[in-house]
Structures are given as C-alpha cells and as structure tokens.
C-alpha cells in the first residue's frame, strides 16, 4: 500500500520540477556568483531570476528586498536581533504565546539578557485580542513579531492589520510566515510589514534555504558579517542550487495557489467531516473561520497522540501530534495549552497537513483508518468505559500518587 503523507506542515516533498531546476547547479553551473568569469556570471544571473520569482510570490516592491538565508530560524533570528541592535534605545519585544520555538526560545533568552518580552495570549480558538495588543504599542517597543499562521492549528493572525497598528506608532513589524507562504496569497507592497521569514522546505523546495524579506528603508544589522553577498546583509557564499530551487518552487506556488485554496481545502474539510461523523468526543482545534486551507488539527479525547501516530504509521499514514510524549517534554504542546484545551484532549491532538499532492483516495483511506484506531486505544484507556468517558474522568481515576 502506498504511504500517505499528511505532515506537510513539518516538511514537504521537493517538487520534481524543482529538483530538475537545481541539479545543473551542482554540475555544469558550479561557479561562484561573485566571480568575474563566465562560470560565475551564469550563476549570478540564475540567482537574480530566483530572487525575482520570490519577489513575485511575496508581492514585494523590489527584488533587493529578498535576502536568501539558510532557514526560517535564521531569518527569524536575524530579524529580531537586527531590530534590537538597530534601535539600541528600545528594549521591548511584543510576540505571542503560540509562536514557533524559533521565536519563543530566542525571546526567552533575550529576556534573560534583560530585554522585556510581552507575549500576547490567545482565546480558546487561538485568536489574539487586538485591544490588548493596541495597549502594548508604546515607545520602547523595538519590534512586534507575530506569526502569519500557526503551524499546529493553521489559525491565521491578522498580521496586515497588526502591522498597520505598529506602523502608526513607528514600531517595526516582523512576521514568521513559514506556514503561510505558498498557501495564502501575499502582497507585501500593500502592507506595512517590515520583515517576513519563510522557509523553502515548507513549499516543496529543499531544506536548508530560507528567505528574510526586508522592506527597503527598514533599519538593519546583519547577523553574519564577512562578505558582500546579499548586499552585505547576509555574508556567506550563496547556496546557488537551493536558491534556484526556491525560485522554481515560488513560481510553482503561484501556479498552484488557486488549487491550494479550493481543492486542498475541500479535501481537508472532507477529512474532518469524515472523521468527526464517526468518532465521538473529538473536536477541531483552532479558529475554523480563519485557517490555512491545508491544516486540520483534531483533538481526540482520552487517548494519547503518540499511540495514535504509531498505529497510523503502521498503516502507512504520516501525521503529527501535540502530545507531550512526541516531544519528550512533560507538557503537551504550548499551543494547545495556550488555547486552554483540557489535558484530556491536548495529549490526543493530531495534526493532518495536506499538500497539492494529496488525493481524495488518500483522504478516504485515512477516514477509514482513524476511527478503529481511536476505538482500540480508548479500550485500553482507564478514562474510558465501553461507549464513553467514565463519569467525571478526572475524579474517577485519581491516582494515589502522580
């Protein structure tokens, strides 16, 4: 049986056309784009084209606003540290409690270094309170960094509005758009967003390539110094094959944008309806009114996520979970906890993330596979009786010691 890959928010398959585009840059076009000779200049031309394709996908005003980096994390780190170093008189960052660890870990560290970090809370559907946000936009804020869409639930944040609000107070705005780029139409020139991070491997380009969009005129300090590459804003010899690949992936993403928001969305909705109509005590997490079209996060109560994943994997189905056990920590996903999802459900959250390769046949196989797995695990669970949760589960099973 062919395996079914529904973990596209973790990483995606590199599109065969992308592979074909990048391969010559390992062989005949191996030159260093900085060189004067013909070997180099061919590569330089290819990089320029890739930059323009990325400019088109992001709707950036100038192609020079695109800085190629090694990954989303590097782009995030560069953006945050740049904002702090370029504005030494400011000491505060505003972010959210549900950001990716690339942002949260760095902010935790900066806090230890003496910076002030405000983390915006979310409600039960994962939405931000813009009034709280407005009240925090004061003079000493160096940067607002808010993700465009959440990786676990797909919930979309109103970053365009939030960037307007920050700009009105003269505050820089960065967005981690790793999950949004390629799935949502983006037109940066029509927004007040100053910086944006993206990662190639989330949109069918290879791993190890990312982009930091930097609005012309935005004050900037490089993270890596030591060369004139990327106009001195990111030193280090260009990863030419991957940059070319990312350019091709950007071009394909534009072509598939309509498909992503119609067919992929239809399959995602079919998956959710198919599962929820058969499994009781399960619900969708996140803001169903404003979500990425490819992402579905379902909480299955009274069962544990890693067990579900192992049983799915046995049938060749790949997904991911917000349970504590899949991460090796003792707490379930910070995103689920931030939304106030009860522990009985947070440990049993499963994220299915589709791509343009996902087929209806695959979705139907998953719809058939999930209900028996949940039933099997609930049979093992001390929180479950034959047909439903034990009455008052937290009290019925109250261990002598934990």
């Amino acid at each position, binding site marked *: 049986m062919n395996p079914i890959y529904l973990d596209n928010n973790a990483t995606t398959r590199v599109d065969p056309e992308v592979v074909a585009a990048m391969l010559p840059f390992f062989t005949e076009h191996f030159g260093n784009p900085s060189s004067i000779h013909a070997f180099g200049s061919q590569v330089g031309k290819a990089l320029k084209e890739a930059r323009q394709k990325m400019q088109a996908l992001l709707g950036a005003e100038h192609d020079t606003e695109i800085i190629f980096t090694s990954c989303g994390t590097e782009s995030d780190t560069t953006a945050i540290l740049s904002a702090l170093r370029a504005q030494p008189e400011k000491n505060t960052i505003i972010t959210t409690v549900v950001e990716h660890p690339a942002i949260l870990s760095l902010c935790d560290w900066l806090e230890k270094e003496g910076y002030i970090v405000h983390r915006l809370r979310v409600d039960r559907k994962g939405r931000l309170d813009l009034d709280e946000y407005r009240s925090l936009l004061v003079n000493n804020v160096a940067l607002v960094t808010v993700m465009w869409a959440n990786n676990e639930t797909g919930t979309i944040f109103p970053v365009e509005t939030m960037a307007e609000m920050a700009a009105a107070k003269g505050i820089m705005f960065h967005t981690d758009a790793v999950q949004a780029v390629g799935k949502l139409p983006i037109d940066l020139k029509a927004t007040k967003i100053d910086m944006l991070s993206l990662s190639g491997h989330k949109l069918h380009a290879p791993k190890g390539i990312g982009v930091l969009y930097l609005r012309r005129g935005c004050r900037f300090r490089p993270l890596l110094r030591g060369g004139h590459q990327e106009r001195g804003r990111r030193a280090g010899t260009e990863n030419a094959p991957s940059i070319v690949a990312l350019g091709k992936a950007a071009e394909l993403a534009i072509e598939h944008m309509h498909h992503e928001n119609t067919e992929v969305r239809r399959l995602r909705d079919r998956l959710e309806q198919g599962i929820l109509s058969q499994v009781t005590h399960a619900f969708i997490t996140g803001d169903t009114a404003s979500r990425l079209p490819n992402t579905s996060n379902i909480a299955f109560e009274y*069962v544990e996520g890693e067990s579900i994943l192992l049983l799915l994997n046995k049938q060749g189905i790949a997904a991911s979970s917000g349970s504590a*056990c899949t991460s*090796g920590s003792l707490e*379930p996903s910070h995103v689920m906890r931030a939304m106030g999802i009860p522990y009985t459900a947070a440990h049993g959250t499963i994220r299915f993330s589709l791509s343009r390769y996902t087929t209806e046949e695959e979705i139907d196989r998953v719809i058939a596979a999930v209900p028996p797995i949940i039933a099997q695990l609930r049979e*093992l669970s*001390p*929180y479950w009786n034959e047909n439903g949760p034990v009455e008052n589960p937290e009290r019925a099973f*109250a261990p002598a010691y934990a």
Partner: protein
Amino acid sequence: MWEYSEKVREYFFNPRNSGPLEEANGVGDVGSIQCGDALRLMLKVNPDTEVIEEARFQTFGCGSAIASSSALTEIVKGMTLDEALKVSNQNIADYLDGLPPEKMHCSVMGREALHAAIANYRGETQTDAHEEGALVCKCFAVDALLIEDVVRANNLNTVEEVTFYTKAGGGCASCHEGIEEILAKVKGERSGPGEVSPPMKPIAPRAAPKLTLVERIRRIEAVLASVRPMLVRDHGDVELVEVQGRNIYVHLKGSCAGCMMEAATLGGIQQKMIESLGELVQVLPASYMPAETSC
C-alpha cells in the same frame, strides 16, 4: 520518532493483558492526565499463597507506556507479592530490550503502579509523593527536580560537581546551560535577599602543611571511602593501586570499568583529593601507570 525496540513495538501493537479485571483484589492507579501518562494496574492475588494469579492493565499513554504496562503484567504473573516488590523499573525496561532515555519514566510508572497495587491489596496507604521535573540531561535521563535537590542537599556550585553527583551533563554536554540555570537559581535561594553571595573559592589550594606518606595515603583512602557509596549505588567500586608523587592510580571496578562516565568520575575524585590533600594531584586509571622501572 523514537527508536523503539522490536519488543516495545510488539507489546504496543499487541498488548498482553489489557482491559479491566473484575475479580481484582489489588488495584494501583498512578500517573496523571496532565503528564499524559496514566496507568491502572489490577492484580488478582491468591489470599492463601500471596501469588499473583492474574494481572491486567489500562493505560492512557504513549507507545512505551502501553508496552511497559503490558510487560509489567507479564513479569509479575505467577510471582508472590514479596517477589513482585523486588521488580525494578530497570527489570521492566530490560524485559522490553531497553527504552529510550526520555521514556524511562514509563518503566518507573510501572513499578510505582505495582507498589501501589500491592499496598492496596494489603490495605496500606501510599504516601510517596514522587515528582518528576523536566528532563535536563537526555544522555542519562536526569530531570530538573533531581538536580535541584542534589544541588541543594550537597551545596554544589559547578556543572562538574553536578555531573559527579547525578551524571547529568556527563554525556553530550548540550544540557550544561540548563544545569547552570539550576545552579544559579539555587544559589539565589541560598544567598537570600540582601545577602551577598560568598566570594568564589580560590582555585589554587592554600599551602598546606606537608603530610607524611602515611597521612597522605590515609587521606586518599578516606576520599575514596567517601565516594564509594555513590559508585556502589551504580554497581561500581574504586580501589587504590599506587601513589607515585602527584599521580594517584586507582582501579575502577564493576560497572564503573569502561563506563562512558569514567573520565567524569575520576575528575570528581581528583577534585576531592585536591581539596583533602591541599596539593595538586592527578587521579589516573591504573592502566596509565608507567611500566615497572625497578632495577
């Protein structure tokens, strides 16, 4: 994904002895839904012989939690209660051909459930308040609470000392930043408000009165005796082989021999030797001793 052994996978995919046991007369509930692990162990004990005739489990948890629970029921069936009480979490892990370090707590939960079920059968009450903190050292599965307790109880000040007492930080070194944070936290508690933390101890030992050879050996033996309990706890031991000037040669025995922590163990002993003898010495494995130069 975790690297589970074939046996863990087998016991997860086809769990033995799952489901409620109506005629159970000893039930142990441990874990909590907050932690994502909860286990109910049900035993049917023969009141005359105290033999566990039947054991079943219900588990909310990950693959290794379910496998550990199932393995536990297989292990204890047919045992007397006194035999069952000797089952350690390592026995459960060994039965499954090992568990990933992050998952060792699954086997600990199994042992706790067993103790709770036996206590329940005997009408005793469990008072153990076992707590577990976030995993700090992944190489040796040491959690934050344990490190904090040990740092507090032994007044530790450096990462090296923590490694010597708990093993934490002795492997890949990626948790040293985390250990430093715990040390800083405990240090903050120690000094309290308004107090100034004591100045750092000078690294070079103060000039000590010259010791006779016998006094030196006695002190060396005393240091070894002081660390022995810790080594014995890990099924190891240490023995003095020879003292040549500044070099003290020892022989590590039992599980200490060839352990990947050997260097850290010797380093810790060396630190104590330096403090006790008041001079700079090197503690080396006996194998480093130069070949006999006798005439």
